[in-house]
């Protein structure tokens, strides 16, 4: 079907069904594995010709839509720690703002696409190798590396000991955890930077970090979702208002694909063993990273590129 959609901000046209297909695929992976696979959106969009900066900023916009419902549900149910969210948000807003400014500066020297691509190569490479290693271990019937490390610990692990000596102690009442305010602020800062550079919500960073400081799972997930939504909202607004890199249509089409995709993925997930198929996600992630590496390393088809990735 020869259906194309003009992307007014990206300055390009893309096959409509292909973009929706990307939404279905990534949404399906999220629904299937029960974790966000939003980090695949941007590389896939880059591979079909969307400029990297526009792809990342538009994915942040998609992230607002994708997390809004979950954040509201957790907010209403009180499944979050208010103080943790405030501290995370302080870091997230700062990180997002700083990240958007850095991306803006990189755009001025026309190297933002390279920076976004390099960040993604690191992200996908690290994540893909981690997933692949754990998948292989699970297929062999062995425990994942993190669990083996935890079971071997004879003395208190390094991270809690480090966290215990940090200043600015606060009590996260609902989670009943005492920690340094620097920890959630720093984690939020990292998540904000991640959203600004990659359009990834940061749940993949926030939930483990919240668990690491002792916040219970249900509060960790709720707090992370709230932060993802608000941080993505901040980054979307700034990217759109300051740099004009958010393509609303692109985000909307992605979302229209990802919602049924998530349903489909969840349906499949109830019928198949996710642990055995996690290796598939690892391969997809590594393949997406390898494609970005190939684009940067292999001789290009054309030696000239338009400035700013705009109209050719």
């Amino acid at each position, binding site marked *: *079907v020869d259906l*194309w*959609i*003009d992307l*007014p*901000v990206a*300055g390009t*046209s893309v096959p409509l069904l292909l973009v929706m297909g990307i*939404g279905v695929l990534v949404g399906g*992976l*999220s*629904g299937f594995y*029960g974790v*966000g696979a*939003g980090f695949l*959106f941007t590389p896939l969009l880059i591979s079909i010709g969307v400029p990297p900066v526009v792809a990342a900023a538009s994915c942040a*916009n*998609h*992230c*607002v*839509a*994708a*997390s*809004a*419902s*979950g954040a*509201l549900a957790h907010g209403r149910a009180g499944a979050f720690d208010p103080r943790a969210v405030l501290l995370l948000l302080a870091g997230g807003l700062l990180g997002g703002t700083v990240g958007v400014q850095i991306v803006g500066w990189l755009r001025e020297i*026309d*190297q933002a*696409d*390279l920076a976004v691509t390099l960040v993604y190569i690191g992200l996908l490479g690290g994540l893909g190798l981690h997933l692949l290693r754990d998948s292989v271990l699970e297929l062999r019937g062995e425990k994942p590396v993190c669990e083996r490390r935890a079971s071997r610990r004879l003395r208190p692990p390094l991270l809690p000991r480090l966290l215990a000596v940090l200043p600015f102690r606060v009590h996260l009442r609902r989670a009943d955890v005492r920690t340094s305010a620097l920890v959630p602020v720093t984690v939020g800062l990292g998540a904000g930077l991640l959203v600004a550079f990659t359009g990834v919500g940061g749940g993949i960073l926030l939930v483990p970090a919240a668990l690491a400081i002792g916040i219970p799972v249900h509060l960790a997930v709720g707090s992370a*979702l709230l932060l*993802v939504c608000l941080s993505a909202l901040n980054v*979307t*607004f700034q*990217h*759109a*208002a300051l740099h*004009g890199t*958010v393509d*609303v*249509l692109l*985000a*909307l089409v992605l*979302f229209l694909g*990802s*919602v049924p995709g*998530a*349903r489909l993925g*969840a349906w499949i997930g109830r019928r198949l063993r996710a642990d055995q198929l996690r290796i598939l996600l690892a391969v997809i992630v590594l393949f997406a990273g390898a494609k970005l590496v190939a684009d*940067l390393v292999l001789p*290009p*088809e*054309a*030696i*000239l*590129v338009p*400035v700013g990735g705009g*109209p*050719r």
Partner: protein
Amino acid sequence: MTGSFGLLLLLVVGATADEPRPAPLELSRDTVVLGLFQGSRIVRATTEARPGARVVFRLIGPTASLRTRRLRRLGVLWVKGEVRRFRSVPSVLRIHGWPERPRREDLERHRLDWRPLSRRRGAEGPARRELVAMKRASGLYGIGPSVASAEPSAELRLPADAPPGTYVVTVHVLEGETVVAAGERQLVVRRSDAMNAVRDLAQHHPALYALAAVLLALGVGLLAGRLVGLLARKGASPARTESAGT
């Protein structure tokens, strides 16, 4: 392939020999509107010619200046390097032949001029080839397939990235070693009103556009969440459907 690449460098602007007679040139439509969802961007061009004649159709987009960067090696990476500016570059160029692809030797034999892609001095050789390669890689320049038809015609397919503006469609009818007829028609390519509105909002009222972007995302997300919730109550698991790729 090399011949095809060479042809991309050619722009027929008229014969230098006898003045050709006007050739009738019919277009299936005079205006192409680029909407949100454009199914077809094909314009059929038709002319008349005596049996045995060869016909060259050409579609040229509006010219504009273009700033590019030349990629250079930095270690193992290809990174953006120096800026190269081109003035007066046709945004789109498609060449179609009938009953076959236009032959390079035909164009050369008739001493047809090449329109330079850049007026910048020193940009006529390798730089022009690099520019054509970039345009070709993005699908803006190309040679269209021959049309299997009894009458001289070509299907001019506007590329996905075709910019709006006034395009020119020309036809040259060649008999033996002579261009015997030539014709020209204009084709208007414009964006739909909705597309223009979105674009204008993003460019001229960025804060408003940004606000609309986040509000739309929130609205669509909450609406989808409500719908998914309703479906979940009918038996699906809600926990796994809350995240659609965050």
